[in-house]
């Protein structure tokens, strides 16, 4: 399980961003997470609390927003969802998908801070 390593990187990222915004405290961290990032949501939520302990983010919430997989379908010529990770094809026309445009995200998108 590497979610603890990820949570530690997440805390460090959030701390740096909070400092850049002259925060005196952080209430919540908002994260965008795609299924292709290789990170399990529940394990990350659990690890977050552990990793935050003893840091300036202790007691803050982690809010995870899903970034579902989207591909560019060459037949539809549109951005489309896929059937599933196990059936990686355009959900509209079933063309096998190779061009991923969303779903790898593992990024901090917002902070709720006191300042």
């Amino acid at each position, binding site marked *: 399980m*590497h979610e603890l*390593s990820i949570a530690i990187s997440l805390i460090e990222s959030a701390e740096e961003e909070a400092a850049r*915004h002259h925060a005196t405290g952080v209430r919540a961290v908002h994260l965008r997470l795609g299924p292709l990032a290789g990170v399990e949501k529940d394990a990350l939520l659990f690890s977050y609390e552990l990793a935050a302990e003893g840091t300036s983010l202790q007691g803050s919430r982690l809010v995870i927003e899903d970034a579902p997989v989207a591909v560019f379908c060459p037949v539809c010529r549109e951005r489309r969802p896929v059937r599933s990770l196990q059936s990686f094809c355009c959900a509209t026309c079933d063309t*096998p998908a190779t061009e991923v445009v969303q779903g790898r995200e593992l990024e901090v998108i917002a902070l709720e801070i006191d300042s």
Partner: protein
Amino acid sequence: MSEPRLVEVRRNVLRQNDVLARELRERFRAAGVYTVSLVSSPGSGKTAFLEKTLSRMGQRHRVAALVGDLATENDAARLRRSLAPVAQITTGTVCHLDASMVRGALEGWRLDELDFLFIENVGNLVCPSSYDLGEELRLVLLSVTEGEDKPLKYPTIFHTADVAVITKIDLAAAVEFDWDAALANIQAVRPQMPVLRVSAKTGEGMDEWQGFLEARAPVSSAPSGGAVKP
């Protein structure tokens, strides 16, 4: 207490690793070394495949390897029998390699004296998927003994890899490996993924693998018989 303020940021959580990986990739390209990493579940045959790869490719190219292992030096010792330079990365409790570990292991290396660098990741089909190592090509290995449905169970690792390598094909008949199902499953999770088939035991498929790699790598090979070991 005053009301909290919502500030938008946009920051990749693994930015530090991504920056390091990008630096490594640039160094590899500048030095003309083609870097290949290998991921698989424990025991799929990464080290055996690399042993064969190093000793065969070492006859025509300057090759080297890094190998990640939680605790032991065993894999590094096996790979050193090929006479190629090998560095061990002991990860302790960490279940994957990251770019800083690769950079650390390469300290003092003359990359311009290499044509190919192979990196064996820790045996794990989940954790390595998040970390870019600066490699040019990532292989995911899948042995015939672990079942045809591995791709369906671990689609993400197949997504971060460029090529699937089915290993231990000498055992395929004994375990009644279903080739059609395996290939269909790989294509279902990662359409158009190239698939190679090898046996490190019999050497079957190793020529095709070497040809595949040489065709992709824009590196100059040493003149035949003139391989230089750094």
